[in-house]
């Protein structure tokens, strides 16, 4: 009875929304990616807490060992377990990247809304600011900022945040501009709704989704830049095992042929970055009605 009932309903639904089918499959794919990415993220964060510090203690009896069952990613020149170091480093990099992406996205939201609502002068000023920040290579700005705040996590977060907002700010500016001239917003205004009401009921619901997608898409770039700047030696101090630091230490042992020192941390970073990129792009396609049917 139950199965006989559910079957016709499902087919009826499918035929009624025939062109919704690819969208549903993308939605399912996105959900799967979301679940996997969350799982990966959680396992890295919890892993960095669960893994004891014993893997990080110096043990010359097992130094320079290739990957094995005991040490999945091998050990370094001090006998430290590379798997423990990678997981902890990744968790630290993720934290810094997340923080930087968040600050950057908030900055983009603020400047984007300002540009779209506060008149022509502010708009021009923001556009010039965008041009300025796109005109200097990101890494050079981050080096400058890291130098001016004297290095450390703060420098990395400010540097990455300051360099990554322009693209999202542009998107948000365009979105607000479009919304402001939309008919239902105009009607709402003429019906005597307050600016605040319009902002919270019409603008915010649209911007929230843009904001989160922007945030997710900023995130992989933020981690890559964080790793790069730490690798160059401007970021975290050498005793914190961030991915960039691990790789820059691995660089000094390159000629010894210990490939696992550089290989595994980098691959883990790559997988993390790619996962967030896929997630962000899938959600972006889902939210964009023009592209949702592709």
């Amino acid at each position, binding site marked *: 009875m139950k199965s006989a009932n559910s079957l016709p309903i499902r087919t009826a639904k499918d035929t009624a929304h025939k062109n919704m089918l690819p969208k549903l499959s993308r939605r399912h794919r996105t959900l799967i990616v979301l679940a996997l990415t969350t799982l990966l993220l959680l396992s890295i964060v919890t892993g960095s807490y669960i893994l004891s510090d014993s893997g990080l203690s110096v043990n010359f009896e097992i130094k320079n060992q290739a990957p094995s069952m005991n040490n999945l990613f091998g050990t370094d020149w001090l006998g430290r377990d590379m798997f423990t170091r990678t997981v902890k480093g990744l968790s630290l990099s993720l934290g810094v990247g997340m923080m930087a992406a968040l600050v950057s996205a908030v900055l983009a939201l603020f400047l984007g809304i300002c540009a779209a609502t506060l008149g022509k002068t502010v708009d021009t000023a923001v556009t010039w600011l965008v041009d300025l920040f796109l005109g200097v290579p990101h890494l050079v700005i981050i080096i400058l900022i890291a130098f001016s705040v004297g290095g450390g996590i703060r420098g990395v977060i400010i540097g990455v945040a300051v360099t990554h907002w322009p693209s999202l700010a542009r998107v948000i500016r365009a979105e607000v501009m479009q919304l402001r001239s939309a008919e239902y917003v105009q009607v709402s205004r003429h019906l005597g709704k307050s600016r605040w009401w319009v902002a919270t009921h019409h603008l915010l619901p649209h911007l929230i989704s843009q904001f989160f997608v922007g945030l997710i898409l900023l995130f992989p770039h933020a981690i890559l830049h964080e790793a790069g700047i730490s690798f160059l030696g*401007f970021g975290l101090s050498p005793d914190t095992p961030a991915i960039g630091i691990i790789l820059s230490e691995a660089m000094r042992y390159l000629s010894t042929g210990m490939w696992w020192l550089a290989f595994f941390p980098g691959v883990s970073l790559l997988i993390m970055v790619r996962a967030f990129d896929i997630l962000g792009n899938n959600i972006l396609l889902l939210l964009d009605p023009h592209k949702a049917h592709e």
Partner: protein
Amino acid sequence: MQLKQLILFILGKMVKMFILLAALCLLSFWMVSNSPVDPVQAYVGADMMLVGPEQLERISAYWGVDKPPIEQFGRWASALLQGDLGTSMIFRRPVASIIKERFFASLILMGLAWTLSGLVGFALGIVAGMKQNTWVDKAIKSYCLILASTPTFWLGLILLIIFAVWLNWFPLGLAVPAGVLTENVRLIDRIHHLILPALTLSVLGVANIALHTRQKLVEVLSSEYVLLARARGASETEILWRHGIRNIALPAITLQFASLSELFGGSVLAETVFSYPGLGRATVQAGLRSDVPLLLGCVIFSAVFVFSGNLIADTVYRVVDPRIRHKDGAV
């Protein structure tokens, strides 16, 4: 008439560029003068215990860091306008000559990587676009997307491990063989040292240009004039040559010029991995060892470099593309 408009366009862009550069100078000077790093201390370094307070005062007077920041900026900016970028603290040479020398080395590296990534990316994009939705297309697309998520410096490390350590095909770093006088370095040695860094640096750009070209080609191929060409019985090669390339070459070239910012950023990392003595390496050294004049010089020079790239991209687009030219010309 058109030439006049073009000149006006370029002049307008240049004025904007100079205003932005002036703003950048002010901003970067303000940032370095706010740095907690004491330039005198950074200059003296480990000899701090040996240097007396009077000597410290004389050093700071020599570098002019005992004056208030506004006066320092005035002196620095007026010297800058005369083309004098100051003297580097770590190299003890004029910043301008260091930048010139380093930029030449970087230019060879970046130029090679830039050309390589442009050609390979364009070719991959065309193949993917022509073989749309086949496994070739999917393979190229996933390859590009993975490349886009790869940290440049890590890729450099992996290439070094494979080609320099295991296979011993290429040297581990530097631009010339160690322990050989400059005049004895052969061209082949330089090229030999250049291949791995250039390869590393080119990878980032490939993904960008290939995906963009593919997208454009797909658009062109689904247009009505291509449909008509197909109906006429034109072959795929003919369609690609007549309609495809003509429409996708220009955006690709523009994109390639606009990517100079990423290229420079990538060269900072690639030069560090390969200890290549270019401008990117100089920037890193200046930042790590608190060489303020050199750091400021590198920041400003990199901005000029990127702005020029963007200006070239805009100009090429205007000169070559009749649609943009006529749109503006009609006003």
